[in-house]
């Protein structure tokens, strides 16, 4: 083969590298639009992540513990189903549907917050 500066093989290599880079960049920047990931934490440490975009039918998540906390994961939303805590504030918090929303059972130190998707507000008061 005649000696050339740039060979066809080189071009293939460069294109492959560019494609890989573009792919990685795209994957990092995007997320399935509208889907949220519920981050479940016990004592501030993450114990579970639930992609609410992948849930097709209501699913109970039994976290057990002293207060027998049970969450209910549904398509696009999650809530506290039951807890043995005296004030039931967690259960009354209702359904979390948007990124940034959070609910907590303080006695059990179980918190659920939604991440990802189209970002909601920076914080909530009240």
């Amino acid at each position, binding site marked *: 083969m005649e000696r050339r500066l740039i060979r066809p093989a080189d071009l293939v290599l460069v294109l492959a590298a560019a494609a890989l880079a573009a792919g990685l960049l795209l994957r990092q920047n995007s997320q399935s639009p509208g889907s949220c990931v519920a981050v479940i934490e016990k004592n501030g440490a993450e114990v579970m992540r639930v992609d609410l975009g992948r849930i097709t039918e209501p699913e109970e998540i039994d976290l057990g513990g002293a207060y027998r906390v049970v969450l209910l994961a549904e398509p696009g939303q999650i809530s506290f189903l039951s807890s043995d805590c005296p004030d039931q504030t967690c259960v009354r918090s209702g359904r979390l549907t948007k990124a940034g929303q*959070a609910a907590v059972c303080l006695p059990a130190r179980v918190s659920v917050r939604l991440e990802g998707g189209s970002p909601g507000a920076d914080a909530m008061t009240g």
Partner: protein
Amino acid sequence: MRSFIRKLTLRQQKRLSLILAVVLAVLLLAIVLVWSRISERNSRLETTGYAMGSLMQQTVYGPNGQEASDAALQAVTELENLISWRVEDSDVARMNDEAGSEWITVDEKTSSLLALCLDVAEKSGGVFDPTVLPISKLWNFDEDVFTPPTQETIDEFLPYVNYEDLRVKEEEPSASLKYHYMGVDLGSAGKGAGCDEAVASYAASGVSAAIAAVGGSVGVYGTKPDGTLWSITVRNPYSAGDGEEILGVMEIAEGFVSTSGSYEKTREADGVTYHHLINADTGWPENNGLVSVTVYSKDSGALSDVLATAAFLLGLEDGQALLEAYGAEGIFITEGRAVIVTDGFPSFSLTLDSFELAG
């Protein structure tokens, strides 16, 4: 170009390849470095922890986010160890132990918070009172079976609630309760004061921007990388029944926000629902038609928290007057789903149409 290259010897061609390869490598490295610098500045970390008896959520922007977040959580915990009556050997616990006998030396954070509470107590005519502990202890919302106190019991303990008998010397700094059985309860100020600590901690950490929520109190620091304002949603007091958590959203550049609502903590006994916002004058949960008050203060989280409680206890008219006296702004929500926003409140939009903007 081709002819130029053909004129080079094989060795020179190889050298040219090598040089080009090195240049490419250096370029790539430079790109990676610049890109990682930019993404570091924009990097965003969300953390959760527990402090001041509540959930503390933080979002921190910039490098060293985890360290900044840990430092802020630590700062709030340290404050809790000073001002919580539940923490053994805290300034407040020691004051309560020595009620009726000794003056106690306290941290200046404690004395300045006490002074702030005394000021609001006075301006609220005593319906808000930091010495409410003897009464707030009667309303135990955490016990397994909730039993509200009787009127007789309340009458028995009311005499020990009197902010005029709490003395604070800010210069020393020290404080004392004049009579035995009195007690200080800073539950209405703790979360807001925690936000003050968090924001001060962010300033010291060197993060570019951060937001902290301690329970329902929120404090912001700096400007987000995208330059937009901080958006803070207001909880719908009827979220459980409505199935809709957010009632509206505000946008702020700086400052602190707190909310006091009757829906936050309730217990039931014999078919009656009791909430945790106790009027220090009557000893009973306040019933004046308000369901929640949100207060914005540009400079002080503690003030936003205390005023939210005091304004709730005072009701719509007197509550607004109190906020005005402090240059604070507020959102008052009534049981009838009316939403009253004070004139100077930072940009607020009502997003739930089951509520109505009034006033």
